[in-house]
C-alpha cells in the first residue's frame, strides 16, 4: 500500500502477512501511523491494495462487502444526526432491505437492549453521550449478522470504566454472533484481554513485527487480568512494540498498564 502525497510517496504497509482463523478474535496493535487503520480499510474494501491479496473466507473484500458480510465500527460513532437511535441501528436494513436473509434474528429493540440503551430508541444522537453513541454504532454493525467484524479503535475515545464494560459487552456479543473479529487498538491490555492472537506492527513502513498468541480461556473474565498468563502476554506484546531491552527498563520503572 503506497500513499502519494505532496512529497515522496509513502509506503504505508509492506510485508503484511496475517491469517485469522474463522470465528476467532484477532487484534492489531502498533504505534500511531503504522498503518493499522489502513490495513483495516483494505480488508473492508474502502481502499485497494497496491500489491498483494486479501481473502475473506475465500472471497475478495469487494465480494464480501457486496454480500453485506462486513460489520465496521469506526473510531468515531459516525451516526446520522437526523436519525433516531433506532433508525441509526436499522440503517443497514434500509440499505439491504428489511426481508434480507442477512438480517439479525434480534429485533431493533433487542439490539438496543443488548447495548444497554433501553429507553433511548427515539433519542437523537446529539442527545447521547459519546459512549452511548459508540454503543449505537456497535449495534448498527450487528443488525446484519456480519461474518467479519472490523473494529477500528472503537473505544479509543471512552473513559476506562466505560471502556472495560464495553470490552466485556463486545466479547459477549461477539461470542454469540460467531463472527471473525479484527480489532485495531492502542491499548496493550485491551488487545490481550480481547484477542486470540495479537499482531504487533511497527511504523514506516508499516509491517508486522511479531505475533502473540493469547492462551487465556473463554469466556474471558475481568479477574483473568490479574493472572500470570495475562501479564506474560502483555510483556510479550510490549517486547514486540518497544524491543526487549527497552521494555525491561519500562517495566522496572512503572507498573504494567492493565487498565
Amino acid at each position: 500500500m503506497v500513499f502519494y502525497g505532496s512529497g515522496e510517496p509513502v509506503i504505508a504497509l509492506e510485508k503484511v502477512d496475517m491469517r485469522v482463523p474463522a470465528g476467532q478474535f484477532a487484534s492489531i496493535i502498533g504505534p500511531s501511523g503504522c498503518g493499522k487503520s489502513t490495513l483495516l480499510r483494505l480488508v473492508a474494501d474502502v481502499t485497494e491494495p497496491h500489491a498483494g491479496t486479501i481473502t475473506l473466507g475465500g472471497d475478495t473484500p469487494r465480494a464480501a462487502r457486496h454480500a453485506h458480510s462486513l460489520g465496521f465500527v469506526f473510531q468515531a460513532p459516525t451516526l446520522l444526526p437526523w436519525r433516531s437511535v433506532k433508525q441509526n441501528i436499522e440503517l443497514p436494513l434500509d440499505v439491504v432491505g428489511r426481508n434480507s436473509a442477512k438480517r439479525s434474528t434480534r429485533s431493533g429493540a433487542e439490539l438496543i437492549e443488548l447495548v444497554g440503551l433501553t429507553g433511548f430508541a427515539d433519542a437523537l444522537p446529539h442527545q447521547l453521550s459519546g459512549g452511548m453513541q459508540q454503543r449505537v454504532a456497535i449495534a448498527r454493525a450487528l443488525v446484519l449478522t456480519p461474518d467479519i467484524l472490523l473494529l477500528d479503535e472503537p473505544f479509543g475515545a471512552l473513559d476506562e470504566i466505560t471502556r472495560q464494560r464495553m470490552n466485556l459487552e463486545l466479547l459477549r456479543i461477539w461470542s454469540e454472533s460467531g463472527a471473525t473479529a479484527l480489532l485495531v487498538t492502542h491499548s496493550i491490555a485491551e488487545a490481550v484481554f480481547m484477542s486470540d492472537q495479537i499482531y504487533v506492527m511497527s511504523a514506516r513502513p508499516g509491517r508486522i513485527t511479531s505475533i502473540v498468541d493469547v492462551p487465556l480461556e473463554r469466556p474471558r473474565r475481568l479477574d483473568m487480568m490479574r493472572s500470570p498468563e495475562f501479564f506474560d502476554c502483555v510483556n510479550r506484546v510490549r517486547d514486540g512494540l518497544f524491543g526487549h531491552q527497552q521494555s525491561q527498563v519500562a517495566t522496572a520503572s512503572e507498573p504494567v498498564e492493565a487498565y
Partner: protein
Amino acid sequence: MASTPSLAIFRASWRPLATGMMLIALLEAAKRFHLLPIFVPAPSEVVWEIWKTPRLVTANLVPTAWKAAAGYSIAATVAIAAASIAVSLRALYGPIYNISVTINSVPIIATAPLLALWLGTGTQVQIAIAALASQFPMLVGTMQGLQAADSRQRELMHVLSASRSQTLRYLLIPSALPYLFAGLKIAAPSAVLGTVTAEWAGADQGVGAMMLYALFSYDTPKVWLSVVLTCLLAGAGFGFWAAIEGVAVYWRHDVDLAD
C-alpha cells in the same frame, strides 16, 4: 424549556418587537419636535397613507409579491437542478459555478432597462430579474450541501455497499438540507429587491412603480411606505423559509452556554 409554541414565539419575538416599537416612538417624537429633516416623514404620516388609501397598498403589494415568488420559484428549480448536475458531473462544476457567479455580479439596475427592451416591459421582465437576482445563494447552498457529508459517513455507506441513489437518499440529501435552507432564506429578500428594481424600468403596478411615482411627485410619506412594504415582503420571504427550516432540520440544536 418552552412549554407551548405560542409562548415560545412570544419569548423569541418580544425583544425585537419592543425594540421596533421604541424606535418608531422615538422617530415620531423627534419629528414632532422638528428634529428631523423635511424629507423624513413621521411614522404616523406613513401609517396615515395606508389608512387613507388601503387600495393603494394591496394593488401594489400583491403584484410585486407574486412576481417575486414566481421568479424565486424558477430560480430555485433551476439553481437546485444545476447544482445537482454540477456535483455529480465534475466537468460541469466549474462552468456552472462561474456562470452563476457572473450572473450574480451583473448590476441589476443597468440590466433591467436592457432586458425590458428585449423582453418588453411586461411582467416577464420583472419575473426574469427576480430569478436572476436570487439564484446565486440557492446554487451555492445546494452545491455546498450536497458535499457536506463527511468522509466517515461516506465510508459507512460504502461499507454497507449502498447504491448511489441510496447514498443520495439516506446521506447526501439530509446533510444538504441545512445548507439548502440557508440559501433559500438568503435568496428570498433578493428576489423581492430584484422585482422592485425591475419595476423601476417600467411597470404599471407594484411596489417599485409606486416608489417611482412617489419619488417623482415628492410624496415622501408614500416613498417611505413603499420602502416599508419592500422590507415587509422581503422579511416575510425570509421568515417563511426560516419557519419551514425549523421543522425540517429538526436535528440542529443550539448549545446553551451559561452566562
